Every structure is written in C-alpha cells, then in structure tokens.
C-alpha cells in the first residue's frame, strides 16, 4: 500500500479525522527534534519544545494553503518557535566541548574524527560535541547550517523557511560553516 502524502493526511485531518495527524507526527518528529537539539542545545528541552511545535502546527493546520511544501511550512513554525524559546529563556549558555562531560561522573573520551570521515563512526559523543559547537554560532548562522547540513534542505527551501533571499542563505551557511571549521581546526578535529 502506498503511503499517504502530506497533503492527503492534512485534508483528512481538516475534515475531522484528527487521529491521522499522528502520521504527520511520526513522519516529522525526528527532524524537528534534531533541529531543536541543534538550535537550543538541550535534548531535555528539545523533547518538550518539539511537542509544542507539533501541537502548534496542528492548531494552524487549517491555515495551511498548500502554496509551499508542508515540510517548509512546518519548519517555519519550528524556526519561530525556537527563536521565541531562546528569547523567553534569555541568551543560551555557550559551552565548549571540554565543558560537556562534567555532569555524569563518567570520564569520557571524545571520538577522534580525524581520518574517520569515510566511515560511519557517529557516536553520542560526536553529536554532543556538534551541539556544543553549534551553540557558539550566531543564531542566524546556526539556523542555516542546521537546515542545510542536518535537515538536508535545498537553498531554495531554506530561503522560503527563513524568509530570506537566496544570497543571504548562502552567506549564512558559508560563514557559519567557516566559523565551525576554524573552531574544529583549532582543536585538531579537522
């Protein structure tokens, strides 16, 4: 059986089959969760914020006109939600990789990324370090880098989701990436 498209599910939800919304939740929850983790820097907060985003999207579902892709529309809600969260919470604490491993009592070693690019060695340590480094980027750059490198969105879709021009998308991604590369290079990771 073929999977229902986003539009088919939305139509069904708007007509009253509310439980079909669970299909959209399942389809997008991980993508949202990853973005929120990268943007807000906390897995614990990210669970709650991701739920809020998906509930907020449901509440606005009848306003979805289908002019953009549903994923782009949903990501716009996600981006605004995260911005508001940071605004309400105040500036997020910037942390360095070396500060990451103090709270559990365990002694950690950060996986050595050098030479491992061709292999699929991605550990929880790597993504924690990535979350920490992303937090050190300016918000605008962080948004663009996560949408491009984690969500794998095209420049066009990022431009629409962030409501900025294509040239601004490129500037934000490249500058963000350059800052990250310098920081990682200083630490000998790349």
């Amino acid at each position, binding site marked *: 059986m073929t999977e229902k498209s986003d539009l088919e599910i939305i139509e069904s939800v708007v007509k009253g089959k509310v439980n079909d919304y669970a299909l959209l939740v399942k389809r997008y929850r991980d993508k949202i969760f*990853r973005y929120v983790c990268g943007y807000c820097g906390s897995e614990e907060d990210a669970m709650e914020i991701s739920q809020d985003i998906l509930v907020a999207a449901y509440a606005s579902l009848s306003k979805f006109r289908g002019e953009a892709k549903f994923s782009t529309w949903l990501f716009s809600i996600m981006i605004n939600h995260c911005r508001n969260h940071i605004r309400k919470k105040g500036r997020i604490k910037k942390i360095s990789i070396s500060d990451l491993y103090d709270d559990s009592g365990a002694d950690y070693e950060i996986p050595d990324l050098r030479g491992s690019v061709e292999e699929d060695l991605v550990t929880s340590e790597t993504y924690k370090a990535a979350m920490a*480094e992303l937090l050190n980027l300016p918000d605008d750059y962080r948004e663009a880098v996560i949408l491009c490198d984690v969500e794998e969105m095209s420049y066009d879709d990022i431009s629409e989701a962030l409501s900025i021009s294509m040239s601004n998308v490129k500037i934000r991604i490249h500058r963000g990436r350059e800052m990250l590369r310098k920081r990682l290079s200083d630490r000998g990771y790349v």
Partner: protein
Amino acid sequence: MRNEHMTFGEISAYSDGHKTDDFSSHLKKCAKCSAVFSEIKKTKKFTSSLKTLQIESDLFDAEIMRRINKRRLFKKRHILPLSAAAAFLVILFSGLVNEDNEKVGTDISVNNSPILDYSHVTDEVVSSGELKSMLTAGKIISDSDDTLIIESTYSEYKALMKRLSIPEENRYLKSFNAMHLSNDKGDTVKGGTDPYKRVVYSIKVVREK
C-alpha cells in the same frame, strides 16, 4: 580551467552539490583548495552527526495526540449554546476551586496514594499524580513507604532530577548505561550515556499524612 583559488563560499557551495566542471577540474589540481574542500566535508560530517538523534518513544506521539484531543474538547465546549456555556462556566469555576482546595489537601492523587514530600532533600512537594504526569517515557515500578523506584529513559531521569531538584546523594541510579564504542582504529573507548536507554532508579520520599 580556473587558475585563481576558489573562495571559501564557492568551495562550500560546491560541497552542497552546486558543482561546475570548472571547479571540479580546479579542485583536482589545486592542493590548497582541495584541502579546504576536505575540511568542509569533515565539518559537515561533524554537524550532520545530529542526524543520529531520534525520538524513540511512541509516548511522545501519544502525548501530542492527548494535547490535541484536549484542545478539541475545549473548542467543542466553546461552541455550546450560550445558556449551556454559562452553566459550563459555573461547573468549570467550581472545578478550579476544587482543584485549588485539593492542592492544599492531604490527598490529591488519582490512585489514592498520599502526597510525596521531598522536603528533607529538597523544597519540592509533589503529588503522585503530578509525578506520574512528569513521566512521559517512564513508569513507577515500585512504591514503598520511603522509596519510589522508577524506570524511564536516562534523559527523562535527568529531567526529573532537575525538575525536583533532588541532589545526587538522594538518588540512586541502579543501572547505569555507559556505552562502549569503538573508534576508527578499532580500539574500545569509553562512550557517553545514551539518553534513550532505559534506566531504573530510586528516590527517597517522605509521605505527608
């Protein structure tokens, strides 16, 4: 073929698939640009490690659907006829008063278990009902006089301890789940704690009579 070096932006865009023959042949011949290209690929690989993050529990979905259905119920109530709405407000108001009274009462839990008072370890006083609602991915597996044993994900354990401000000395994590991983050389290295692994832990409590 292009003779001058590519800009960082050009190499970065190239790594995103915006390729031209000119750039491709330049990268093959220019060691400097090729080194930058390789660093960008490693940086992208580092950032994209976030792709491994997943929400494991279906309870996440269930909580969203619960909240959505609650909203719908509230909306339906809103469109009741005016007289019924007035009656509803009276009921709602009395409900709120009751809820308020219950908070200062002795027993507010759904399962008739008393209020859990963490006052000897923290300032928090929480009903067992509230505690259960904090556990979206966990459950209370044992509920004795002075100790609660809970099973949940590690990340929920951390969140709960933070929310209840329970210090380290008053919690006991029975099964710790440090991961053992291999690095690219095949050596075993100590890993972190998997936030999605389930753990069992106990908390000391004092029950308010």
